[in-house]
């Protein structure tokens, strides 16, 4: 029995991969992502965190790129390349974790609101609407200011301000799934709320959740950079924090392009990659989109 299930799953995965690999943009995005994640994971193996310590900086202030510092130095003489490598860990971690948090909240609220009709749905949806119309950037700023700096604070701030759209989406899909006859059949066979939600609805909305999470990571990374640029950072070097530093210390007026461009390019590249992958996943998982992608 399990062997058969496994063969079936492997075959489905193979089919998925075959279809995904046909999405050229998606493959490009995936390659960029793999590179970014490998860099983030490998940084502690090849580099010492001391290079981010201002008291141990060896370079000149705002020195242009050289052999020793391939991407130049910042206002305290630290290597920009090293800062970007270490910063990728923080940016990606915050991106992934807050997207995950947002998806968990969004999925739970969405499924619950779609499954339980009546007042439960009404209350959940009004809360969702409230978060939807709230300016999320301002809310996230206020939250991070109240809770004080720190990685977990930023994750929390981005996570709980960005789940509302997902909840709406998941609720719509839940309604569609629950309208199918087999749900009625399982109800007739005595299935409880939990059984229906976890066994029938969740697997059917999961592809949507996956695609949406990927897109959410992109917007979470942008949100993190924006927050860091506005001064609400996690206290560790991140790409947004680097951009902030270049602005604070007048890199533009000093012509220090090596301080501004690399973190900006990194943000753009990774966000683009997540978007491409997300779109490709959407196209593969949604049969209606398959034709024209």
């Amino acid at each position, binding site marked *: 029995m399990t062997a058969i299930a496994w063969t079936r799953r492997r075959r489905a995965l193979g089919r998925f991969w075959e279809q995904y690999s046909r999405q050229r943009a998606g493959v490009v995005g995936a390659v960029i992502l793999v590179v970014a994640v490998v860099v983030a994971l490998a940084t502690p193996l090849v580099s010492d965190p001391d290079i981010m310590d*201002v008291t*141990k900086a060896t370079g000149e202030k705002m020195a242009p790129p050289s052999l020793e510092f391939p991407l130049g130095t910042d206002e305290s003489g630290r290597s920009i390349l090293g800062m970007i490598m270490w910063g990728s860990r923080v940016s990606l971690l915050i991106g992934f974790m807050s997207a995950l948090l947002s998806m968990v909240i969004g999925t739970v609220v969405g499924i619950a609101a779609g499954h339980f009709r009546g007042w439960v749905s009404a209350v959940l949806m009004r809360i969702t609407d409230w978060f939807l119309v709230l300016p999320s950037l301002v809310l996230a700023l206020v939250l991070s200011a109240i809770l004080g700096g*720190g990685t977990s604070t930023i994750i929390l701030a981005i996570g709980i301000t960005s789940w509302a759209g997902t909840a709406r989406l998941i609720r719509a899909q839940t309604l569609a799934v629950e309208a199918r006859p087999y749900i009625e059949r399982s109800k007739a066979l005595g299935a409880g709320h939990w059984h229906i939600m976890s066994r029938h609805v969740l697997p059917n909305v999961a592809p949507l959740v996956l695609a949406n999470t990927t897109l959410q990571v992109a917007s979470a990374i942008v949100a993190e950079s924006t927050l860091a640029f506005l001064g609400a950072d996690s206290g560790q070097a991140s790409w947004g924090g680097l951009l902030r530093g270049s602005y*604070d210390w007048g890199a533009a007026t000093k012509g220090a392009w090596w301080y501004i461009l690399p973190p900006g390019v990194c943000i753009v590249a990774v966000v683009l990659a997540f978007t491409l992958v997300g779109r490709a996943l959407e196209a593969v998982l949604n049969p209606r989109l398959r034709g024209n992608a």
Partner: protein
Amino acid sequence: MTKWLARLSALGVAFLLVGQGQTALAQNPQQAGKKIVRIGSIQSVDSLNPFKAVRLISGQIQRWTYMFLTTPDPKTLEPSPDLAESWSTSEDGLTWTFKIREAKWSDGKPVTAHDAAWTFNKIMTDDAAKAGNGPAVENFESVTATDDRTLVIKTKAPQASMLDNPIPIVPKHVWETKDVGTYEAEDNPPTNGPYIPFEQKKDQYVKLKANPNYWRGEPNVHELQVIFYENPEAAVAGLKKGDIDLIGRLAAPQWEAGAGDPNIVQWNTPGRRAAYLQINHGATTSDDKPVGDGHPALKDVKVRQALHYAIDKQKLVEEVQNGLAVAANGSIVPPMYKDFFWEATGEEKVTFDLAKANQILDEAGYKKGPDGVRTMPDGKRKLEFRFSIHTDTPTEDKLAQFLTGWFKEIGITLTTRKLDSNKFTEETGSTALFDIAISGWSVNPDPEEVLATHLCSRRPTPTGEGGGTESFWCNKEYEDLYQQQLKELDRAKRAELIKQMQRNLYVNAPVIAIYYPNNLELYRKDRITSITPVPEGRPGEGILYGGVSGWPMYSMDAKPVEAASSAAGGGANTGVIIGVIAAVVVLAGGGLLLARRRKTAAEDRE
């Protein structure tokens, strides 16, 4: 797309119009031939009512528009006659008699001792009038005018700082009909200083005109305008363009932006501010009950001293203040005040020495764990401190990075907390929810005020109301010295006592002074032809804006406004406008792309 362009250009026009409005303020045909000086301020005026105002800008305007009992001499900064022509003290030092100058208010009524008596009595008896200068009359027993020219002040205890009284005298006949708690002086009540306010717009500008009847003589400049800017970058851009003529109290990067313009003078002199770290050494409320959540290790003076050894102040001056500050080897009084400045020497002097810091901590029993972080002697808690700074202050951020690096070397973990200014004030001033915090104080020629911020009585009340403490310090030796200096009327002896108080703070380290930032100002020499700072006549020293007397604004001279030539460039801050438009374009472009993308995606779906 054309629709977008149309909208964008409409927006641009709107911005230009806003700019034109501000230019109109400076450009007026009637002003030709007049000498007008426009002063930029990054702070807006909180109130022109002296009983209420607390901000520096408001205090400055008071010094330009009112007479005080005495005023600091422009050269020596020692008290000199202003409203009081002369004065005398009784044998016991408790009764002061002032002879009031013959002068006129700007509405023509005579200035009398009754005006002064009313002003002081109002503050002594009405809580609503205490906000501005309440502490200055705390020690007053009674104030009476025995005749039109004689004012008698009786104090509860001798008061050495009597002649540095910061209270402007207001006209009794106008103010006694007002409710001082709510009146904002928006109708420009009469004054008697060098300038008279005649026009104001909240959060935008205040205009002052020369007082022809001022006792020293009419100022050279006909009109003084104080123009408010939202942020320092915009103000410096305004100065470069000629919208304003002078701006003071700048941070290093903005001051450096004034370089390279032949018409702009970069004024860089010793400042009156001390920047220091405030350490939670076991904060208590005024009834000696512990308050807050400070780390227990910081109660140990050894730990605080070790922290002091782990700070390279000269490096901080170079890296954080761009070299525009003086490293602090003393305490809370900056070297600008030579008489009261104290500097550590010999054995006591703390220099940057990580080995010594490590040695102090080793000897005191704080052992390093396998992760390199020390623990308390009882092994219970690691030495992990929080460092509270303000949000949006790159210099404090950089300072935090350096401290984190050095403290790591001595086995102490420092994490930075950024707080908005209200929360910061609350946590470091009354609730004591901090370990180490950044702080600073601008010191007056008489340092009594800053010394008082470290007294037991300034600690928060048991109900949590802040008393204005800068350190939660409560130390017997310090209290005794403070009481002694209050009564010591001999200036040299009093200075010695004040130095002892600074030594107390330096050795016990409830605060650790880091540096004294320079006073950085910019002014246009093509507009302001001469200006003298306070103190005057000491080369390389002195403050133009934000000083302790209105002397620079009174004594300065300017070029008359040429007919229809001032305010050459159009609009305020073209750079800012371009920036805003660029931002709008980028946002709009981004939004458009996003909208388009959404649209295509939606089309794909359906």
